[in-house]
């Protein structure tokens, strides 16, 4: 039943699209002409702007129709954000390239809608006629007088071969059935240009897609920054701050003990605990600072990566060849990618050796981290690699991960300098 429903929808579209497109085009052309004629007066631009906006409205009806009847989903381009007064509106509409693309669409649509209608009409009309030929030939015929003076009824003939008698009419019926069978596909094919142009003129263009991508990476970058701040706050709250409160407590204890005349070994024990806390607070802070911005990064990515490698529990070989230094932001992203990848390797891969290679120059920084572990790393929901890809995407970089089960794992990060 689904196929029949789809067929009926496509037919309905073929029937509706052309009249709608014709009327729309007529209105738009008239609107533009009138606007053009009046463009010497103040009225002209208003008429043109209204026409352009109207074309947009019509186009969205056509888009919706194609979506509902043909299943052609064309992503709607979000409308321009609302602007101030009517003059602003007019200027925005007249300057909107996307709006003019809809005008182009409305003018082309009638032409593009023709094949669909023609093919649909021909397929189904002839298909039905052929299928019913055995019946129709008794009703629908022309009478011809043959040279020998006899009358002949001819309903259908092709290249001088009359197709009315048995077994010829069987071929006609078969042809009709075949035509009806392939009709949906032919109609679909005939609608293809309509769909294609609809998609390219009404769908998001390269610029729209770029904006969409930027919006997404921006949102991720903002989330990432917020998450980082939250993590730092947690670390400070649970780590350093708690240690300092603990230190204050121990100092209070010492005061109480001394004031109460407690034996010195009892006091000393608390002093030692307090010292331990003070030391641990410093260690915690150092770790936290490194997580925010490793001091070694100021001396260059190669130095920072060498420091990172020395900290890793694994054997890490760093090869660096950086010409011109990238921006600090790019260096920082590359560093934290390497840090995360090394941590992953140490945690999950069971690798012995990790090779880190960073090459910079020609406006591109490339970081390759290769380990000889068990592989099977994936970029996906909940994976640390997804977070990295988000960070890398924020500066238009890319991250590729090759990690067959059994290893090795190779992660490539490419970052443009700006």
């Amino acid at each position: 039943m689904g196929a029949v429903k789809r067929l009926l929808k496509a037919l309905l579209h073929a029937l509706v699209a052309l009249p709608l497109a014709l009327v729309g085009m007529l209105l738009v052309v008239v609107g533009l002409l009138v606007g053009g004629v009046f463009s010497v007066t103040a009225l002209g631009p208003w008429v043109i702007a209204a026409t352009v906006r109207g074309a947009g409205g019509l186009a969205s009806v056509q888009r919706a129709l194609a979506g509902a009847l043909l299943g052609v989903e064309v992503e709607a381009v979000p409308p321009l954000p609302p602007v101030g007064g009517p003059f602003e509106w007019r200027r925005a509409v007249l300057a909107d390239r996307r709006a003019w693309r809809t005008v182009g669409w409305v003018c082309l649509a009638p032409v593009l809608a023709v094949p669909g209608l023609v093919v649909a009409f021909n397929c189904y009309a002839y298909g039905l006629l052929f299928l019913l030929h055995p019946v129709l030939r008794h009703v629908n015929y022309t009478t011809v007088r043959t040279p020998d003076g006899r009358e002949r009824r001819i309903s259908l003939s092709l290249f001088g071969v009359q197709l009315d008698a048995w077994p010829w009419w069987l071929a006609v019926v078969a042809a009709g059935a075949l035509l009806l069978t392939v009709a949906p596909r032919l109609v679909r094919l005939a609608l293809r240009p309509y769909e294609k142009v609809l998609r390219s003129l009404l769908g998001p263009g390269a610029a729209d897609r770029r904006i969409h991508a930027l919006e997404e990476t921006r949102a991720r970058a903002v989330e990432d920054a917020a998450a980082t701040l939250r993590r730092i706050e947690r670390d400070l709250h649970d780590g350093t701050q708690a240690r300092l409160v603990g230190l204050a407590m121990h100092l209070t204890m010492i005061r109480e003990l001394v004031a109460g005349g407690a034996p010195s070994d009892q006091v000393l024990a608390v002093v030692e605990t307090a010292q331990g806390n003070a030391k641990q607070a410093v260690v915690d802070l150092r770790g936290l600072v490194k997580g925010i911005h490793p001091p070694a990064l100021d001396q260059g990515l190669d130095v920072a990566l060498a420091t990172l490698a020395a900290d890793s529990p694994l054997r890490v070989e760093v090869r660096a060849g950086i010409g011109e230094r990238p921006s600090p932001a790019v260096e920082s992203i590359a560093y934290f990618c390497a840090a995360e990848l090394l941590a992953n390797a140490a945690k999950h891969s069971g690798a012995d050796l990790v090779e880190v290679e960073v090459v910079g120059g020609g406006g591109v920084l490339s970081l390759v981290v290769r380990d000889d572990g068990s592989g099977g790393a994936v970029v996906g929901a909940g994976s640390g690699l997804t977070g990295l890809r988000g960070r890398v995407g924020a500066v238009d970089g890319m991250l590729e991960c090759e990690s067959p089960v059994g290893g090795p794992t190779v992660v490539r990060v490419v970052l443009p300098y700006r």
Partner: protein
Amino acid sequence: MRVVVAEDSALLRDGLVQLLAMRGVEVVAAVGDADALLVAVAEHGPDAAVVDVRMPPTQTDEGLRAAVEIRRTHPGTGVLIFSQYVETRHAAQLLGGGAGGVGYLLKERVVDIGEFVDALGRVAAGGTALDPEVVSQLFGASRRASALDALTPREREVLGLMAQGLTNQAIAERFVVTERAVEKHVANIFAKLGLAVGEGGHRRVLAVLRYLEG
């Protein structure tokens, strides 16, 4: 005084227990999360509970919710929130009942262990003990501008000390004035905030609440 301590950091929990013990406070249970706190309170029926705000599992406001629960189910147990940061909304939420028996102190207040134990005692006795930081934030950000405007600067100071839980006598000592003078200020504050005499002993708490409610 019998006390339950709920604090997820072992370091601070042990330190606090030792300090309280030095001042003769009996810590009947020291736990690390809110569920254990509720169990301990139900089991021991302590005079007061010292409760950290952030505890496992989410490290957000478990302690606070447990505190509200304790005030509801065990009116005889005072709750002293023991926090690393000032959050006036939390204080307001706790005081929402209006019945006292609650306090909110920053963790570093334990440095003055004498005052800390006093505050704990006030809370256990059904009074309030708000951290001066909390009080000053409330005054700074008070949205009840009209009520605040009606008070003289001195009355505002008195209200601030009331919020911290000080008695009239303690306030008089702080300002080096007679207790009579403080009583007059307090009566003026009650009048200006529209708190009738009939509301009895809770008027001090209600006066503080007027600011918290905003």
